[in-house]
C-alpha cells in the first residue's frame, strides 16, 4: 500500500509541473539498498510475453530479500515500462542506469530491444541479463545471455526430427525478423551439410502479427505431399502463433502427418489455445514445466503462490531469469561489491543449479550451458519430454555454420574480446 501511495503522490507532484527538478532527484536518495532494474514491456504488443518475466523477477528479488538480501543490504526492484517501443527501451535503460543507479538490469525480449539498449549499457558500463532464446552472432562485455543460442535449441531439434521421425523434407516457416532469418540460415546450412537437397527445403517469411494463415497452411500441406516425410520448423513469433495453430487444427494437419517443431511456443503461449487438436506437435526448449525435479516442483509452487493462481504456468525464459539472477547474486557475493567491472569479471565460471536437474555454468563468452529438451504438446497445454540431450550444451555466440561468423570467437576472460577473429588473430570490434 505504501509504495502505491508513494507512486501516486509522486506522480501527482510531477504532473503538477514541479517535475523538471524531480526527474533528477532520484539520484540524491541514499544508497541503503541495492537496486535491480527490470526492463520488460508491460504494455503494447510484447506485454503478452514480457509481463510474466517482470513478475518472475519481482518474486526472485522478494525471495532473496527473505534470505537476508545481498551483502547485508536489501534488494530493491525498479520497474519501468518501455511499452514495446524500441527507442523507449534505450531511453528507459539510460534512466535506470543513470538516474536510478541500478546495479544490474534484467530485461528485454525481442532482439531489436536488446540491440537498442546495447550502446547504452556499453556507454554507461552496466550489466544486462537477457533471458530469451535468440539468434546468436553477438557477445558483448556488458551483456549476459541466459537464453538459448541457436546451437542450444534449433540444431538439437532438427537432429531429433531427422533421427526419430525420419524427416527428409523441411519447411522453415518464420516471422520476418532477425531471429528467424539467422536461425533459418544456420539450419539451412546444417541441413545441406547433412545431405538434404535444396528442393527439399522451403523457407518462407510472414509479417509480424500475421493472422490469416489459410494460404500458408495449404501451401505447407501441398509441399508435404511429395512422398517424403515432411516437418515444419517454426520460428513464428508470439502473436502469430495462435492463429497459425488454429488454422493447422482446422485444416486437419496433424502431428502424425506433418509435425511442427517450434522455438517460440511454450507453456505461456499454449495457455491461449485449445491444445487437443495439436497433440504431438513439438517444441524445443531448455526447460519445460512438466520436468519432474524437486527444484522445479518447488519453483512452480513458489510461482503459483506468488501469483495466487494455481493455474499459473512457468516457462523457459523464466528459468533463464532464475539462473541469471542467482548467478548475479553469487557473482556479487564473490566480488564483494556491485561494481559492474568486478561483477563482470566474477560472473564467468559461476555455477548455478538449473531447474531441470543439471548445473549451468556461465561461460567466458557470456552464454551459459544448458540442456536441450524436445517436448510434444499434450492435451492439457503442457509438454511431454520425448528427448533430451546428453549432458549440457555450451552456448555458442558465433555460429559454426555461417561464413561470416565461423572464424569468430568470444572470450571475455582470456582474450577480453567478443569477436576475436581466429584467422587474422585480431579482435574485430571496437
Amino acid at each position, binding site marked *: 500500500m505504501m509504495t502505491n501511495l508513494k507512486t501516486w503522490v509522486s506522480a501527482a507532484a510531477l504532473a503538477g509541473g514541479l517535475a523538471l527538478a524531480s526527474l533528477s532527484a532520484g539520484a540524491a536518495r541514499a544508497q541503503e539498498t541495492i537496486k535491480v532494474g527490470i526492463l520488460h514491456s508491460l504494455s503494447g504488443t510484447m506485454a503478452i510475453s514480457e509481463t510474466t518475466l517482470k513478475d518472475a523477477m519481482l518474486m526472485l528479488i522478494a525471495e532473496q530479500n527473505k534470505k537476508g538480501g545481498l551483502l547485508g543490504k536489501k534488494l530493491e526492484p525498479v520497474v519501468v515500462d518501455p511499452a514495446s517501443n524500441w527507442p523507449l527501451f534505450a531511453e528507459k535503460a539510460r534512466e535506470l542506469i543513470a538516474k536510478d543507479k541500478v546495479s544490474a538490469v534484467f530485461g528485454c525480449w525481442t532482439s531489436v530491444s536488446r540491440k537498442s539498449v546495447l550502446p547504452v549499457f556499453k556507454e554507461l558500463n552496466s550489466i544486462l541479463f537477457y533471458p530469451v532464446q535468440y539468434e546468436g552472432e553477438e557477445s558483448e562485455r556488458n551483456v549476459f545471455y541466459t537464453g538459448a543460442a541457436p546451437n542450444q535449441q534449433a540444431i538439437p531439434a532438427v537432429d531429433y526430427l531427422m533421427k526419430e*521421425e525420419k524427416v527428409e523434407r523441411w519447411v522453415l516457416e518464420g516471422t520476418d525478423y532477425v531471429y528467424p532469418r539467422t536461425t533459418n540460415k544456420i539450419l539451412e546450412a546444417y541441413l545441406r551439410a547433412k545431405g538434404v537437397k535444396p528442393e527439399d527445403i522451403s523457407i518462407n517469411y510472414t509479417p509480424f502479427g500475421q493472422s490469416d494463415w489459410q494460404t500458408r497452411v495449404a501451401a505447407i500441406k501441398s509441399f508435404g505431399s511429395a512422398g517424403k516425410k515432411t516437418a515444419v520448423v517454426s520460428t513464428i513469433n508470439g502473436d502469430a502463433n495462435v492463429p497459425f495453430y488454429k488454422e493447422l487444427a482446422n485444416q486437419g494437419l496433424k502431428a502424425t502427418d506433418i509435425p511442427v517443431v517450434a522455438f517460440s511456443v511454450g507453456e505461456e503461449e499454449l495457455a491461449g489455445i485449445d491444445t487437443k487438436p495439436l497433440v504431438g506437435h513439438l517444441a524445443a526448449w531448455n526447460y519445460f514445466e512438466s520436468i519432474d525435479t524437486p527444484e522445479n516442483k518447488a519453483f512452480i509452487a513458489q510461482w503459483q503462490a506468488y501469483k495466487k493462481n494455481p493455474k499459473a504456468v512457468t516457462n523457459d525464459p523464466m528459468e533463464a531469469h532464475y539462473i541469471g539472477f542467482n548467478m548475479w547474486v553469487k557473482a556479487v557475493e564473490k566480488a564483494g561489491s556491485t561494481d559492474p567491472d568486478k561483477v563482470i569479471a566474477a560472473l564467468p565460471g559461476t555455477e548455478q543449479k538449473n531447474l531441470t536437474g543439471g548445473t549451468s555454468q556461465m561461460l567466458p563468452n557470456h552464454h551459459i550451458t544448458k540442456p536441450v529438451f524436445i517436448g510434444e504438446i499434450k492435451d492439457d497445454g503442457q509438454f511431454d519430454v520425448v528427448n533430451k540431450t546428453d549432458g549440457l550444451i555450451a552456448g555458442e555466440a558465433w555460429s559454426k555454420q555461417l561464413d561470416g561468423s565461423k572464424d569468430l570467437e568470444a572470450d571475455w576472460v582470456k582474450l577480453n574480446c567478443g569477436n576475436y577473429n581466429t584467422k587474422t588473430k585480431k579482435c574485430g570490434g571496437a
Partner: protein
Amino acid sequence: MIRILLLLLTLGLSGPALAQSDPYARLASDSYGDIETGIAGLAASGDPRAGAVLAALAEGRLLYRPSDKALFVKQGDGLVEARSGGAATAEGLKPVRANNKIRRALEAAQGQLNLVSTDPGKRREAAEAVFKARDTSALPAVETALAKESDRGIKRLFEQARAALLLAKPGTPEADRLAALPILQARGDGDSIAILRTIAASDPSETVKAAAGRGIQAIETRLAVAAAAQNVWYGVSLGSVLLLAAIGLAITFGVMGIINMAHGEMVMLGAYTTYLVQDAIRAHAPGLFDWSLAISIPCAFLVAGAVGVVIERGIIRFLYGRPLETLLATFGVSLILQQSVRSIFGPTNREVGSPGFMSGAFDLFGLSITWGRMWIVLFSFSVFLGLLFVLRKTAFGLKTRAVTQNRRMAAAMGIRTPWVDAMTFGLGSGIAGIAGVALSQIDNVSPNLGQGYIIDSFLVVVFGGVGNLWGTLVAALTLGVANKLFEPYFGAVLAKIALLIFIILFIQKRPRGLFALKGRAVES
C-alpha cells in the same frame, strides 16, 4: 519394412519369446520402441480386448504398474484389468506414454481392427487410417473387409486403401501395380499424389513409372484448378473477417461520422465476453459447450453495446459537430479499455475453445473448406443482412437515418435525437462485439486483439465509401479476394503493400470511395 526390422531387432535384443506372445507386457513400458511393438503385436493377435486397450492408449487412459508391469484401463472413475476387463484396484500407476510414432502406429492398428466394425463411420475412418499408414501387413485384412463391404462409398475407400498397400508392398505383380494407379488418380488428393510421386521415382518398371507420371500430371492439373478456386475461397473467407471487423465501424464512423478509434477495443470486449461465457459454461454446464458461441453472441452484443452507450453518453455526445475531436477522445478511450482488460485478465492470451461443429473440414468439388471459416462467412453475411434490415426496414433505422441526415429537422419532427444517437452508437459497438465472438475463433484473445483490425477496418469503410453499407461489403470482399490472389505470387507482405498502394491510387480516381454518396451534402 523398417517396422518389421525394428520388431525383429527388439525381439532379438530382449530375448524371451514371451514378448511376442504377450504384447501386454510390451505395452507396460516407458520405452517407445517397446510400446510400438506391443501395439503391432496386439493388433495382430486377434485378442477381443485389443480394440478397447488400444482405444484406451489413444485416449491416455492406459496405465501400468512399473513394479510388475501389470496393465490397467481407466474407465470412468474406476479401473479395469487390461487383459481380462475385470474390475481392479491398484496404486502407483503411471500412464503409458505416446509420442508421434506411437500415435501413428496406433492409428494404423486401430484402422486394421476397425475395418470390420459394424459402425460405417468407424469403417470409413479405418479405411483412411490404413490408407495413410501404408502398413502392408494390413493387406489381407483390407481384402477381407473389401469382400464383405456393401456400402458403395466405403467400398471405394477400401479399394483406394488396397491400391495404396499394393503399391507399397514389394513384389506386387506389375499388372496389379498398373491397375492400382488409376484408382489413386481418381482419388486425386495430396496423399495420392505423394504415393504416385514415390512410384514415379522408384518403381523398377518403366511402364509403371510412366503410368504414374501421367497420373501425377492429371492430378496436378486438377489440383491447379482447385487451387485457384481455393484461393478465391480463402479470399472470401478473409473478406468476411474484414467485413465483420469493419461493419460496426461502418455505423459509428460511416453513418454517424465519429472517428471511432476505440472500435477495435469493442471487438476485443466481444472476444473476452466469449471467453467469460465459455468459462462459466465449463464450470456450470459443460453439456452446453457446443452452444457457447450462440450464447455468447447476445452477451457480447449487450456488453459491447452497453460500453458503447456509456462512451457515447459520457464523452461523444459533447463532441457532435466536432468529428475530429472524437478521434482524440476515442483514442484515449481505447488506451483506457486496453489497459483495463490487461489489468483484469492479464496480458496473456485467454483460451477460447471451438465447439465441435466449428472444427474439421469438408470437401466440396475438390475444395477443402474448413467448417470454422464456413460458419464465419455465413455469420458475417447474416450480420450484414440483419444490420441492413434494421437500418432500412425498422422504425429505429428510419430515425437513425433521419438524425444522421439532418439532426435539427429530425428533432423538429419529434425524434429524441440524443436517444437515437446513443442507441446507434450502441448498435455499432454491439456489432463490433459480436464480431469479436467470431474473431475469438481464429485469432488471439488478448488485449491487443483490436489493434490488429482497426486500420484494416478504416480502410475497408473508406474504400467502400463512407456511409454506404453495400460499399463496405463490396470493399471487404474485394480486398480479401485480391489479397489472397496476390499472396501465392508475392508473399503476404508484398500483397498487402500492393493493396495499400492500390487503395491510395483508387481514392485519387474516386475521391469518395467505391460507392460515393451523391449530392451537395457530402461537399464540406
